[in-house]
């Protein structure tokens, strides 16, 4: 398993390299000028040119590219063109907020989604099943920012239970939780929709298996059949869907951070995009890419934990 993990990590290096080359090119292909963005349209061309030079944007592209790679190789993400703050520092500040948000979202999704999926599978083609399937289809079709605004209107504007903005006071866990609740619920509900559907179909598959009939035949009570025998075998596809959709959730978290005015990688990225902060943008994209690669790896490794038949070679 260890050798497998190492090999997977090695394979992801060329993938990462391709991703960051594309990112490097993409952020620069769009017209727009970070120096102009920071100085505003009133600034004289001289001032803009001086700033471009100081930012190193007058250097040839290949030189900037090599600098970027060399920096990454040394673990240096560069300095934001706009604020001058090291990107690593910005990311270190924003990342916990994003992690806290996505992981709580996934957690809510699993806690709500798996039981709901099992339940609808057991009530197949009856009212709870139809209801569950309709709701989860609605969940799949909902853009995260829209759901976020709806939840905000209901819980924050009408009921005044939760704040609509900010990440909470650092060092005050209760306040952090209050600020986390609605954004995490937004992501969690979307995740619930995915997981419910997947758990339902995985459960339906195994419920028809011989060993389930055998378990029933030998007189096990229903809970034992469902949880010990059926669910355990349905877990592999469920875990893989959690893995896959966690990646989708990271995308959703960008919009949710904007809607709820939370600090985080998404807000950092959108800000960097609007201001053409090439350095911050490309480094944040690298972090996101790394995120996705790690998540996929963790998903693959977790198969072995739930299914002893899976071997890593």
């Amino acid at each position: 398993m260890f050798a497998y993990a190492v090999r997977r990590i090695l394979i992801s290096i060329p993938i990462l390299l391709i991703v960051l080359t594309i990112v490097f090119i993409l952020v620069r292909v769009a017209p727009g000028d970070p120096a102009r963005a920071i100085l505003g349209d009133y600034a004289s061309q001289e001032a803009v040119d001086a700033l471009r030079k100081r930012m190193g944007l007058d250097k040839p592209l290949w030189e900037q590219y090599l600098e970027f790679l060399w920096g990454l190789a040394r673990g240096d993400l560069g300095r934001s063109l706009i604020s001058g703050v090291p990107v690593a520092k910005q990311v270190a500040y924003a990342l916990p907020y994003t992690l806290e948000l996505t992981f709580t979202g996934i957690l809510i999704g699993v806690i709500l989604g798996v039981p709901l999926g099992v339940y609808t599978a057991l009530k197949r083609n009856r009212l709870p099943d139809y209801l569950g399937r309709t709701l989860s289809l609605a969940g799949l079709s909902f853009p995260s920012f829209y759901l976020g605004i709806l939840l905000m209107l209901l819980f924050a504007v009408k009921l005044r239970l939760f704040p609509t903005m900010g990440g909470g006071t650092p060092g005050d866990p209760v306040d952090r939780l209050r600020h986390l609740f609605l954004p995490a619920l937004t992501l969690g509900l979307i995740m619930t929709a995915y997981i419910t559907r997947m758990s339902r179909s995985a459960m339906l598959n195994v419920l028809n298996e011989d060993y389930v009939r055998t378990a029933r035949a030998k007189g096990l009570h229903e809970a034992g059949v469902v949880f010990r025998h059926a669910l355990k075998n349905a877990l592999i596809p469920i875990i893989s869907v959690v893995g896959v959709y966690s990646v989708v959730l990271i995308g959703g978290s960008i919009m949710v951070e904007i809607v709820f005015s939370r600090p985080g990688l998404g807000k950092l990225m959108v800000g960097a995009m609007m201001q053409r902060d090439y350095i911050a943008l490309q480094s944040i994209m690298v972090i996101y890419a790394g995120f996705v690669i790690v998540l996929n790896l963790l998903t693959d490794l977790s198969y072995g934990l739930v299914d002893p038949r899976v071997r890593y070679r």
Partner: protein
Amino acid sequence: MRRFAVLALIVCLGTFGAFGAGKFLRIAFDAADLKTLDPHLAAATMDRAVVDMVFNGLVRYKPGDISAPFEPDLATSWEVSEDGLTWTFHLRPGVYFHPFEGYPDGYELTSEDVVYSLQKAADPGRSAYAGEYTGMTFVAVDKYTVQVKLEKPLPPSLMLPKFADYAGGFIVSKKAVEALGDEGFRTHPVGTGPFMFKEYSPLEKVVLVANPRYFRGKPKLDGVIVYYMPSLSAREAALETGQVDIIEGPPEQPWVEKMRAKPGVVVDTFGPGECAVLHFNMSKPPFDKLLIREAVAYALDREELLYTVGPDIADPLCSPVPPLLPGGLTCDEVGPLRYDVDRAKAKELLAKAGYPDGFSIEVVISERAEYLIPMQNIQAQLAEIGIDVKLKVVDHSSMHTLIRQDVNPMVLYVAWRPNADVFLTRFYHSYSIVVTGKKPDTNFSHLGGVDADGDGVIETIDPLIEAARTELDSERQVALWKEACEDILTLVAAYPLYIKKFVYARNPKVDYGYELKSTLALYPQINELTDIAG
């Protein structure tokens, strides 16, 4: 039982942790984060707002009214020498900088700080406004006296704005900049203003606290929290739920109407706003022909455009320099050069120019509503006389780059400039012609570089601009500027559309402490008089 416990938990979480202690005014801007709080670099609205609260200039615009005479700020008085080449500013004694590391009580502002600050503002590597101070030298005569020496005399109308509470005129603490470095200063500004920088939470907010030693008296508020909230719906929700007191709005009519209809919300619209002007590229067909530009001018209906943009947030603009500034012209003064809509005449002119069936052009335009909506209306209006405008919508930053590369046959530009000289120089002086000018800037029409009316001579208003710049008699100066405006309109180098005001919504409990008509700070200025009732 368990369900009840969960509910109870939710309610508990909801009730605790509301923001307590002190009278803090909270204002939310349309931005993901700050860019820079260095006053000599700050250009965006949310940054200028913080800068405005933290710093002072030598003189200041009257809060809420930029057309009033300048008031003393850090300088109590000023005078100019006989030859007009030396300006002397007398500093207010007993003004203290905000505390910062190493100076827990701040220190007294002296001429040394002022000279340092102005030199920084004049340095193109450390300031976006260096061009304003070319050819000036700054001398500390004694502790409380600063002299500015000029190469050529400047009238007060052009001199004082450079030393006011705007852009390069803000006075920074020399010791703080040296201690923190230029980079550090960007996120830790130290000035003399009513509010002091306290802390910055990246991507979220900046907290300012009242300066108890402010020379105009201790502020009524205990502080100001500036939030960065790029989502409009989030800002609305935050205002409605009382989590913030003032929000930046989009300058759009439907939004103004929607917010006005809400109880407990007041919408403020104020000037000077930004001038929307359509510039014609006279260096290439089809707008190299005067007849065609006149045709377009007669085809456009300002009233219709105003209606589209919104009567609450826009006033008609008929002159390249807005009438609010000395040298500008009102629509009445412009007279026939308003080119009141007359589409029959427009078609006639088109036919005379050899395009009886019109023509087709492609125009790059920003995706921002303030650009896209008026441009779509222009597109519809020009279709009436057979001109087919194809819009290529790009993001805002891209548009700013592309129009400076001279790709557009016509450019819609929405901006404010501090005075007639800057308006005319940056948009109509030959030096400022995009790409090919000596100091390429925002002269999109190429006025001064092309034969605009086909008489074989290159038309230019450079001499008028330059003469006005050094004209010490303010009446003659204004006359020169007005003449330049009329020339621009006669040649139809540009067609002024409207002046768009700024839009903010607030809790009615907020009392700015002055009458808000216009401000260069781009936000409803918060100062020592601002208060929240209750």
